[in-house]
């Protein structure tokens, strides 16, 4: 009996051992996931959610490492300084691309492996229910009345949301002022206090804040759930703002080995189809997806051009 047990154990060890060497040469040690903010930032939460759900599908150990500074430049340079062995990858957002452009950095996006674009978060025009102006029609009427003095608030000048605001003004033929705040939270405080009329952000910003509402959403179709009654730009008669998004995803240094590539590809695919992940992403009004290398890189390049043009227009870069 005892002998049988031992034999069984030995056999088991062999089976498990051969299994792991045959199918998964990667990873053989913990993988570092670099996050460009301090713990507790929005992208940090995204990364940790990802590792939590990834644990269902792989035994690999992920260590989240926070490398904050310069809006992500520090983290990207860190990735570029490490070996392309697949053991370092980073969480990225569209804002990082903007930062590369605005700081005039020599980082070449072609040196990076744009592994997966996992979340597409539509841009949203957000207003306060406490103010008399809170629907799209009211915003436009108020802007025309104030003739360029209507105040829009949001995070950093030259960022995603600022550029979204400029595009919206152009498309709607209105003029307004952009007053930037140090963070989205502070800008929302300004909207709640009535110091601005519009805040530009993403649908998740209004969750848990009943005084805020999404007036218009940049999406080809209406969102579901809590946002079912929010009109899209097309519905309010504005063309060309159907797919303005803040994406989130993962990238690494270009040139990782094939087995690492296969491992990640498989993992991203599984997480993207995971019910818990989909629920987490959709609750914030965003869309889960899995855009792979070439498609992701094309998005990044398009964003780079758009940031370049917009930042020139506001005079932040030459």
């Amino acid at each position, binding site marked *: 009996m005892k002998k049988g047990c031992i034999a069984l154990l030995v056999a088991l060890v062999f089976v498990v051992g051969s299994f792991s060497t045959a199918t998964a040469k990667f990873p053989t040690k913990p993988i570092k996931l670099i996050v460009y903010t301090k*713990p*507790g930032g929005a992208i940090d939460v995204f990364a*940790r959610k990802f590792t939590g759900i990834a644990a269902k599908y792989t035994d690999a150990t992920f260590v989240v490492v926070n490398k904050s500074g*310069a809006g992500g430049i*520090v983290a990207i340079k860190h990735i570029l300084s490490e070996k392309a062995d697949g053991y370092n990858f980073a969480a990225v957002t569209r804002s990082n691309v903007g930062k590369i452009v605005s*700081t005039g950095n020599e980082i070449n996006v072609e040196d990076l492996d744009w592994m997966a674009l996992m979340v597409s978060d539509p841009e949203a025009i957000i207003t306060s229910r406490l103010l008399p102006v809170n629907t799209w029609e009211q915003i436009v009427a108020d802007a025309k009345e104030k003739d360029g003095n209507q105040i829009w608030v949001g995070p950093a000048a030259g960022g995603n949301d600022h550029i979204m605001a400029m595009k919206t003004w152009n498309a709607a033929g209105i003029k307004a002022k952009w007053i930037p705040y140090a963070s989205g*939270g502070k800008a929302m405080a300004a909207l709640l*206090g009535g110091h601005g009329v519009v805040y530009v952000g993403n649908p998740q910003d209004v969750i848990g*804040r*009943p005084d805020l509402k999404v007036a218009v959403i940049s999406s080809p179709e209406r969102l579901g759930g809590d946002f079912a009654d929010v009109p899209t730009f097309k519905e309010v008669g504005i063309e060309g703002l159907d797919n303005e998004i803040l994406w989130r995803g993962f990238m690494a240094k270009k040139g990782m080995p094939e087995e690492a590539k296969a491992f990640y590809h498989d993992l991203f695919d599984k997480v993207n189809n995971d019910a818990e992940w989909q629920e987490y992403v959709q609750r914030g009004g965003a869309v889960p997806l899995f855009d792979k290398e070439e498609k992701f890189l094309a998005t990044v390049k398009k964003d780079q051009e758009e940031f370049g043009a917009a930042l020139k227009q506001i005079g932040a870069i030459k």
Partner: protein
Amino acid sequence: MELVESFTIGFSVILGWKPLLIIVTGVIFGILAGAMPGLSPSTAVALLVPFSYTMSPALALILLTSIYIASNYGGSITAVLINTPGTPSAAVTAMDGYPLTQQGKAGKGLGTALVASTIGGAVGVLILILFAVPLARVALKFSPADYCALALFGLATVASMSRGNVIKSMVAILFGLLIKTIGTDPISGVSRFTFGNDMLYDGFTLIPALIGLFAISVVFSKFETWTGVGRVMDKIDNKLPSMQEFLKIKYTILRSSIIGTIIGIFPGAGATIAAFISYDMSKRASKEPEKFGHGSLEGVAAAESANSSSVGGALVPLLALGIPGSATDAVLLGAFMLHDLVPGPMLFQDNPEIVYGIFSALIVANIVMLFLGLYGNRLFIKVVSVPEAIMYPVILAIAIIGSFAVNGSMFDVAACIGFGVVGWFFKRYGFPVAPVVLGIVLGKMVEENFRRAVMMDGYGVFYRDKLAFIVLLIAFFSFVWPLYKAWRHHRQPATSGNDEAKI
């Protein structure tokens, strides 16, 4: 009563060995992290966010808020004992706390800081519990012009901080403001004075600058006058302040606690500004203003009760509206999100056990902090009887580790040493360093809000906005009045007492 009912829920969350153990752990970690230069409250909380991921949401937030409140007190320990503020706001505590240690009265300094922190923390939490929602609404009404005026009022406190030489304090504060111009322009996004260095896009980080100015500068000064023997302090007295001494400062503690809470409520103000302003107010209200800066118990009490009470204040906008009021709040917001919770009005309805669990935990954490502090002080105080030959190298080592810990960047270490050299020069030639911190902390707040106010409504806003106008007037007079008094003082040299004192 609804409140009683809610607290029954709240306390039921925290009663049990596990939550209580978590509170005690949080308080101990908070005190130690606060005392460690480099681990500011926000970093201390951030360090344990990943750790709390696996806990239940209520326990995780209880742990993090216990750390938050205790770390604001912890900063005072090193500030009093070795003139090295563990947290930015403790820079104000050091102004009177360290002179007390030099006079051999470290026990009184630590004791006052502890009691003031406990009472301040309790007042802040009480105001949070009772008035969170209406207060948060009022705070939101403040316009950029009002914030600018408030920040200028903060800068004006420099006049009362200077002991004698006003010009030197002005130089110090201007240096701080100058440092703050480095980095990305907060309004236009253009890089300023970064010389293409990635590390400068966010400007100099406050913590390494603070450690350099306070801690490393002391080490350099000591090396300069090195004798090779001696202890940091020959006579130390761990006697706590007497009951009588406490009764004398009770109004200072109460007033500073209220000031601290109110300033804490404004998103973007925070513990450091609260400490500076209440120090200034207490000096004005004091019967012995001449003692400030020379080991006044009132000075220590004002700074510590204000920075601890600001914790309760800062949680007001976070819990009531989901708007982070301080750097630590921003980290807490992330912790909420990790557990799929969104702080704000809905949280009170949907998860009262979390909100009232936090409230109850904050009350308990304050009490735990008092007892741990009373016991700990007897240990901490031994630090100053260490031989100098050990003490100063250890301070240097801790300073370097601390500045590295902030971002894990060697650039910060270099910046810390650079600021150490600056601080050493400052001390050598009699310039105070605390105003530099004031300049760094408030520079951005003044600039951002001034520009926002002008962009929104033009320059006239500072006159049209009545609140901003009144605060600006108060700031102006609070700046000019001490200067006028000093000027009169100089005209009558017969009464000259303790001005021109060395820092």
